[in-house]
């Protein structure tokens, strides 16, 4: 078990299994199929991301360095939240990027019944340590426990 202190981008607590990518998470490429064609597990459809391709993201603690790709990324994340197909939380090893931040903040401000806590700046050691299916707990102060 290890703990990592991050910075809260959008508040909340969560407990969920991890799904991990060490590459940038291309939000549009990953989630567009899930949003368009009714995949409630929101499995990753980005064929360039061999580590994550085909794995479910909805309800999981998505552990990543940052998001990349189209500037529709934030909007796609917002829609995933509105459709209840969002990750349980998003945990960034780096400083969050502008697209993911937009999606998380839009969901936090404009959607009433959605919780997707986002914590960033967890450091490279976090991504080196965490593996798929490890249990992640986030407390209200941005402390992330991995076990």
């Amino acid at each position, binding site marked *: 078990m290890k703990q990592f202190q991050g910075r809260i981008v959008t508040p909340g607590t969560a407990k969920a299994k991890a799904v991990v990518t060490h590459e940038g998470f291309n939000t549009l490429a990953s989630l567009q199929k899930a949003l*368009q064609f009714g995949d409630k597990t929101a499995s990753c459809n980005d064929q360039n991301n061999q580590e994550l391709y085909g794995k479910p993201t909805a309800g999981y603690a998505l552990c990543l360095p940052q998001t*990349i790709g189209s500037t*529709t990324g934030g*909007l796609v994340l917002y829609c995933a939240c509105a459709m209840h197909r969002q990750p349980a939380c998003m945990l960034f090893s780096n400083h969050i990027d*502008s697209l993911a931040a*937009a999606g998380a903040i*839009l969901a936090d*401000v*404009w959607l009433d019944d959605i919780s997707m806590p986002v914590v960033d700046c967890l450091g490279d050691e976090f991504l080196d340590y965490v593996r798929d299916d490890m249990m992640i707990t986030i407390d209200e102060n941005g402390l992330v426990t991995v076990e």
Partner: protein
Amino acid sequence: MRLTQEQQAILDGAKGETMAKVMKTLVMYGETFGAEEMVALTGEHNHLVTSFGLKALGPVYDLMDQLIEAGAVSGQTFSMDPRPIDPKVPANFLQKFIFKKFMYSRQDFYEGQLEKLGLMDKDAFTCACYLDQVGNKPKKGDILSWAESSAVVYANSVLGARCNRNSGIMDLMGSIVGFVPKFGLLTDEGRKATWVVKIETTKKPEAQLLGSAIGMKVMEDVPYIVGLDKWLGTELDEAACTYLKDFGAATASNGAVGLYHIANLTPEAKELGDSLVVEGAKEYIIDDAELKRVMDNYPMIWKDANATPKLCFMGCPHMSLQQLKDWTDRVEEGLKAAGNKRVVIPTVFTAPPAVLKEFEKTEYAARLKATGVITSYICPLMYMNNPLCAKMPVITSSNKLRTYTTARYYTDDEILVQITKGGK
């Protein structure tokens, strides 16, 4: 973040609950990136990324309705990314049915919302809004709230405007209140380069391949590129701007580049030279072997690698008027050399509606039509974003299209051979 009295009043609800939420969104966005203040937008027009009336984007339409009902519309008129459907583009019956009745069934409704929110005009649908014919070309130093990665990187790098890589919806929020948080590429410090990229190729590098290599290496960082002026010259003429349009789109989609500097060519590099480079910047050398390595490592995602291409898309980002003319000459020459009269693969050249109108006035339009090439305003990416088209063997020289879809990348020369002579 320090807010002015006007901004604080909006946040406190002086202009209603919806405007307060718009301001709260921007304040949270700015605080996430350490912004200390908001700055006023100065560009004449905004540019928004979400142009497609996808049925699945119901939450977006609900939000737009909320904004319209509250009168929280854009203070600037805006252009949009390209439309997702065009009857001119080849599609079978099933594809057409799915596009119109299933995927993009909300297109007309959404365009109605956009008109209420501040759409420039009914033809303002293109990712290359900065082309002269379109009329959304910011000035150096303008503060923007744009989205569309290829447009943002062009505005920052080639035009010297200042814009962060904003997301869809966030782009609109800025022009509703008329302010954006000052951070990142809006600051002098954020525009400094943390990479020096040295171009040491033996010939002019393919724009979209070079952009891909740099994007994948530097990700969201700012590169200062040395040695490209050898191939592009030191003036931002039409040829250089066209090259940089395609190059930038690849840096932004294969990575997350929002700004690049090219020594002796782009405005800030000309003014400030290598003082733009931070101490301890990382170095990346690109030679012929590196470009080959990058291209060889693109994943092969066609089920049958030897399938005969069913469609070719050129113009992601949209082509300029000069590109349409140049490619007309090239296709004619290629057909002549191959002994063919018309292209052997259905081929679509995409460009902004305003550029296509100008093109139609030239003698090139009839010549291109005679080769069998179709011109369209469509967004190839949106065309490809469904399981039916994803199974089609589509070829392109767009590294952006390759990144987001199953389209297979070839260089411009290779594409020319494929569409005029054939081959796999």
